[in-house]
C-alpha cells in the first residue's frame, strides 16, 4: 500500500519539484489524518504548517495558489485543498487518501457527538451550554466574514455584491442556487477582463 509507485495517474512531469515525488500514499494519508485530528479552530493554518513548513511537499506560492482555487470552487477549503494537494503529489489515489485522512477524525468525533446529543441533548446544563456555544459560533462566523472581506475583495464596489447576495437570500428568499447564479454572473461580468491586461492575474 505504501510506496505505490505503480500509480498510473502520476505522470511525473519533468518540471515537478523533486521533493513532491517522495510522498507515498501512506504518508499522504497519515499527514492529512494528523491535520484532520489536530486542526482545532480552522484548517488552513495547520495545512500550511504541515504541507509547506514540515513536509515541504509544496512551496508557499503553490499553497497560496491552491488556496485561491479552493476558495472559488464549491466545496470546503479544507477538503478542496486535500484534493488539490493529493492530486499534485500522487494523482487520483493521492486525492482520495488525503480527503479521507482529513475527514476521518472529525467525522468519527461528530458521529459520537451525534449519538450523545440525541440521548442527552435536552439536559438543562447541556441546553444552557449549547446556547452559549451557538452564540459564540455566530461571532466566529462574523469574524470570518470580516477577515475574508479584508483579504479577498478587489474593490469597494464589491460590498454591493455582498449586500445583494444577503438581500437575495435572507429578504427575497430566492434560495442559494439562484442567488449564486444571478449575483455571481453579475459580479463576474463586473470584474470582466479589461483591455489593459494586468500581468500576474492572481494578486
Amino acid at each position, binding site marked *: 500500500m505504501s510506496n505505490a509507485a505503480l500509480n498510473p495517474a502520476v505522470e511525473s512531469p519533468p518540471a515537478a519539484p523533486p521533493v513532491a515525488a517522495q510522498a507515498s500514499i501512506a504518508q499522504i494519508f497519515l499527514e492529512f489524518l494528523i491535520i484532520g485530528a489536530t486542526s482545532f479552530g480552522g484548517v488552513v493554518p495547520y495545512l500550511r504548517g504541515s504541507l509547506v513548513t514540515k513536509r515541504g511537499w509544496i512551496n508557499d506560492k503553490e499553497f497560496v495558489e491552491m488556496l485561491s482555487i479552493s476558495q472559488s470552487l464549491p466545496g470546503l477549503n479544507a477538503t478542496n485543498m486535500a484534493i488539490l494537494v493529493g492530486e499534485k503529489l500522487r494523482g487520483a489515489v493521492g486525492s482520495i487518501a488525503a480527503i479521507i485522512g482529513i475527514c476521518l477524525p472529525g467525522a468519527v468525533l461528530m458521529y459520537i457527538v451525534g449519538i450523545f446529543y440525541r440521548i442527552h441533548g435536552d439536559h438543562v446544563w447541556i441546553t444552557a451550554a449549547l446556547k452559549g456555544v*451557538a452564540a459564540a459560533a455566530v461571532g466566529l462566523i462574523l469574524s470570518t466574514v470580516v477577515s475574508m472581506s479584508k483579504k479577498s475583495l478587489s474593490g469597494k464596489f464589491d460590498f454591493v455584491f455582498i449586500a445583494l447576495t444577503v438581500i437575495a437570500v435572507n429578504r427575497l428568499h430566492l434560495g442559494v442556487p439562484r442567488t449564486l447564479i444571478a449575483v455571481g454572473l453579475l459580479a463576474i461580468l463586473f470584474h470582466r477582463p479589461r483591455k489593459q491586461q494586468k500581468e500576474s492575474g492572481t494578486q
Partner: protein
Amino acid sequence: MNQIPALIRVFAYLSLLTVGGGMAAFPELKTLTVEVHKWLTFPQLIHLYSVGQMAPGPNMMMIVAIGQWAAGGLLGALIVLIAFFGPTAVLAFIVARGWKKLEKWPWRTSIQEGLAPVSIGLLLAGCFTMAKGAITGVETAAIAVGVLLILLHYKINPALLVLGGAVIGVLSFMPK
C-alpha cells in the same frame, strides 16, 4: 421509511452550494433538513453546527450526525459524507488538472474576483439565518459580539472561544 435516497439527493445538492465555505449552504441546509424532510429541528441543527466548530478538521462534519439520525446508524452517516464531499471533490480534481492550462485565460481572474464578494455574501446570509435561531436575547448577542471583537483584535484559537461560549452558557442560562 427509507431516507437514503433523500439523504443522497439533499447532500449532493447542498455540496454544490458551498461556494466559499460550508456556511454558504446553511440557509438551504435548514430549509431541506428541518422544513422539508424534518430530520431534525432548527435548534438541533444550530446546536450540531456550533458544536462542530469545536471539532478538528473540515467544519461541516456535523452532517454525519444528521445522516446517522435520519437513516439510523453508520450507513446514513457514510452516505451523507460521500454525497456531500463526493461531487465537489470530483470537481476540484478536474479543476486541479485543468487550472494550469487556464492560467492565461483572462476570465479566470474575473471568476475569482467576482465570486469572492458573492461567497462572502453567502457566508453572511448563512450567518444571519443561524443568528435568527441562536441569538435569542441580550446575553447571546453579547456573547456573539464578544467573540467577534476578541477574534478581530487578538490572535486566539477560535475553538477555545466557542468552548468559552459553552462555559458562559452554563453560567448564565442554567435555570436557577
